[in-house]
Every structure is written in C-alpha cells, then in structure tokens.
C-alpha cells in the first residue's frame, strides 16, 4: 500500500483548516489598519464583506437546493425519452 499523498492525510487537512481560519481572521482584523472606503451605509458595519459574503453564499446554496427539488432529473432523462 503506497503512502497517502501528504495533502490527503487527516492531520494535514486539520492543519489546513487552522491556517484557513487564521487567514479569515486576519482579513477581518485588517479592517482596523486600512483606510476604509464607505460608499453605502451598510459598508460601515464591521466586517460587512465577511458576513455578507458568507450569508449570500449560504442563501444561494439553499435557493439552489430548493430549486433542485423541483427541476432536478436523473441525467438520463432526455436519452430515455429519445428511445
């Protein structure tokens, strides 16, 4: 049995998660150190892009999931009809 690629080992993945979380935190903390540009009032809320990006994606995934309930078909749907 060959050794698993280092990127696929559980301990690497755990470490990557920590690095990812550290970077996430760093981008939010960076807000204290940069000249903030506020064009619309929502942007003044702390970490706006962070939570907005997260929530927008969560909403998109849930919406897609709901739409899938109605519109998803087995991928042989059209082939079967042609037979």
């Amino acid at each position, binding site marked *: 049995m060959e050794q698993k690629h280092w990127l696929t080992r559980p301990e690497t993945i755990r470490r990557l998660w920590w690095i990812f979380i550290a970077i996430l935190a760093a981008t939010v903390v960076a807000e204290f150190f940069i000249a903030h540009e506020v064009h619309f009032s929502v942007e003044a809320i702390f970490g706006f892009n962070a939570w907005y990006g*997260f929530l927008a994606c969560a909403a998109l995934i849930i919406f897609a999931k709901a739409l899938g309930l109605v519109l*998803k078909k087995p991928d042989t749907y059209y082939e079967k009809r042609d037979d």
Partner: protein
Amino acid sequence: MTSLFAHPGLVLIAGALAVAWLRGGARTVVALGAPLAAVVLAWNAPDGVAVQARFLDYELALFATDKLSRLFAIIFSLMAFGGALFALNQKSRLELPAALLYAGSAIGVTFAGDLVTVFMFWELMAIGSTLVVWSAGRTAYAASLRYLMIHLLGGVLLMAGIAGHVAEFGSIAFGRMMLDSPSHWLILAGFLINAGAPPLSAWLPDAYPEASWSGTVFLSAFTTKTAVYVLLRGFPGTDLLVYIGLFMIFYGIVYALLENDMRRILAYSIVNQVGFMVTGIGIGTEMALNGAAAHAFTHIIYKALLLMSAGSVLLMTGKRKCTDLGGLFQSMPLTAACGIIGALSISSFPLTSGFVSKSMISQAAVDLHLFYVWIALAAASAGVFLHAGIKFPWFVFYQKDSGLRPPEPPLNMRIAMVFFSALCIGLGVAPGPLYDLLPYAVDYVPYTGAHVVTQLQLLLFSGLAFFVMLNFLKRTLTITLDVDWVYRVLLTDLTRIAAGGLARALARSQAVLADRAARLGGRLYRHHGPEGVLARTWPTGSMALWAMVLLLGYLLLYYL
C-alpha cells in the same frame, strides 16, 4: 490604403481554408501562424474605415476600426492562437479549420462598420461554431442541431431588425440605437440570443459541453463575447440590460451549483460572467463600459484556461462527471495548478486578471449610487467563487480519491495552459497595458488597501460557506431542467399529440371521402355506364318530346 489582405478576420478565414487541406508540419505552421498574424494586424489596424465595398445600393464598411473593435479583435486572435495550440493533437480534421473560421468571422463582426457586414459575419460565425460542435461526432449531433436552430432564429430576428432599421432610417451604419422602434427591439433580441440571455439561454449549457475536449475551449470565447461587443456598440446605457444581466448572473450561479458535468458547470458560468458584462453595458457610464470591455478580455483568457484544464482531464480520463472524478491533482499537478489559476481569476482574486476588470463594473454602480445593483453584484462576486472558483477545482482535482491516475496531457496542451495562466497573472499584476487598450480613458486604481481587503473577505468567507455546507453540494447523477425542456419535451410531445390527432382526422376524412367517391362512382356508372340511362340510344320521339317541353318552358317564362 489598407487592403482586405490586412483584415485579421479574413486572414484567419483564409488560414482556416488552408488548414483544412494541409497536413503535418505545414498544418501546424498555418494553424499557429494565421492567428499570430491576426494579432499583429489587429494591433496595428489603422483607425477609421479602411475598406469599403458597394452592395446593392449600400456602401459597406467591411473594415472599420476604433479602440473597441481593436480590443476585441486582439483578444479574439490571441484566443484563436491559444486554442489552436491546445487543439493541435485533436484527431478530428474538421474541428480546427471550423474553429479558425469561427474565430475569423467573430473578428469580422468586430471590424464591421455597418449592420449588413455585421449580419454577414454573424451568420458565418453560426456556421463555424456549429461545425465545431459537429466535429465531436455522433453524440453531439442532436445538441448541435438544437444549437443551430436557436442561432438561426437569432439570425432571423437580427435580419428582420436590420431590414426594419434600414427601411425606417435609410442607413445601414452600425451605431448606438435606442429602443424606440420595433426594429431596434428585434436587433436587440438577435444580439441577446447570442449573449445567452433569458429566455433562450439553454442553448449554451446544452451544446457547449457536447463539443470535443478542445472544441469547447473555442466555443467559450467567441459567440457570447461577440454579442457583448455588439451590445457595447449598439445599446450602451440601456436600462433593461441591467436587469437582464443580473438575472444571467444568478441563473448561472444557481444552475452551476446544481450541475454534475464539469464542463457544463463552466458553461453555466459563462452565462454568469457575460451577465456581469451585460450589467455593465446597461449601467452605461464610461467606467462601466470600460469594465464590461475589460471583463470580456480577461474572461476569454481565464474561461479558456478553465476549459483547457477540464478538456485535459476529459482527454486523459474520458470522464466528464464530477461524480466520476476527484483526486486528480496527484497525477496531473500542472493541469490542476492551471485550473486553479483560472478559477482564482474568474473569482477576481487580487493579483489575477478578474480582479482588475470586474471591479470596474461594481465601481460604476457605486459612482451612480445604484445600491441594489451594487449589493447584487457583491453577492454575485461571492457566488462566482462558490460555483466556479472552488467547485470546479475541488470536485475535479480533490474531494474523494477516484483512484484515477491519468498522466498530464501532451506538451502542446501544457504550453497552451501555462501561456494562458501567465496572461491571467500578468494582467492581474500589471493591468496597465489592458487599460490602455480600453475604449475610454481609465481613471481607476484597482489596488487600494480597502479594495483588496474587502474583496478577500468576500471571497474567503464564501469559501468558508462552501466547505461548511459541503454536504448540501454533494454531486448527484442529475441534470437540472431548463427552458430547453420546452422545445425538447413539451413542444415535441404537443407535436406528437397534434400529429396523432391530425393523422386520425385525416384517416376519418379519407374514409368518408372514399365512401362518397365510391357512391359518386356508382351513380355515374348507373347514369353513364354502358347500361346507364344517359348512355342509351334515345328514340327520336323522346327527343322531340323533350324539345317540346323546353319550348313550352321558354314560352311560359316569356310571359311571366
């Protein structure tokens, strides 16, 4: 005086005809040389109308150049070069010539100074692209016919619009149009069909993934971006386009999230990206139009790169579904790396080309205080990372280990991918040369501390959403129904039912008619047959009798 020989589009079309006949080294030289020559010619095309021709009563401007046409011609030729390099080892002998014809006609549209020339190259482009889909073989045939049907419909709408425009305004010049007459609505509809706009956008994700591993690379570039070009020239600042563009953006994201075929994910993402450009055209300020044009330029490169990466996977594994793939980074590290660079660029990560182009469109929304447009674009930017930026590389190159260990693709394909990766990063690091090519003077600095930090927040937290909600995104062996269901299922079923009804009605009326005919025949036979009343020899007496009856009748009528 520049002649038609200096027209980059015609050079490519001539190259296409040559490549169709040549073999071996000569074929390679022409296939790569013609696009390179086109890049140089496009770069040096002189401003103004260089070639005119008379057609019927009209003066055609076959070769008219300004900054906008030059920008699109350069990127189209560059794309033709990269695509040809990638496709050199394609076995189909039809595909490469068809692709060069397709690219050449797209360039023809960008240099068209009048609507008749636009139409001519527009239709040639439809033929070229259909041939590219066709060359993938039998499996693509049905999809290619659906593709052709929609594009011919678009062509008919465009032709009707142009004819109406000429009748109304007496000019064929291609300039800015207002939505003040039915003919302009028709022209807009013709343009939008090629852009992949609703309601007829399903042709794109239907047909593109059916092309060969190299064919889709070409298809991703020309049709939709030529539509962006003509919209930029014909309908800048048309409010309707803002809403159409936003719809396309979210349609692309949602359908891509549900999709399992790796290249169909990227096809939906084309609609999404063109949506950003269409929105920018609808906003219509110089900043927005620059943004739309720049985004078309960068998009062609990174989308081709993404599809090259997917095409390499398809060629080396023969598999196209995310459910069959995974773990490929182990044996295809270069393909994976190039795919990731394309994915970061489409997501507009800082230091990639998408960052310097897409943000101009958002900036234009900020400048006009269009809050809802801006907030929708921000959500969409996060969504792009979600559906294309992470989803594509994750499911193809990582996720579970599929056990597949395919080698890297051949050298020419690797060079093409590295070349386009370098362009993605080069334009992202140093956007100056691109900004110089844009139609308006650029007053925009992409790299400010605030912009970089907010963009990173937006993208990285959407990445967090992806991994947190990974269970919701598990791939299934499904497709998602789209508007094409109407003509693939509903209309065919209705036609079948109607045809059945018609056949029954015909059979019934036939029976009735046959019955009548038989009876008529019988009666005729009775009267005129050998034994019939009217066929007998008549005695003279009966004739005299009838003559008398007639005369009496006449007498009677005379007195009445």
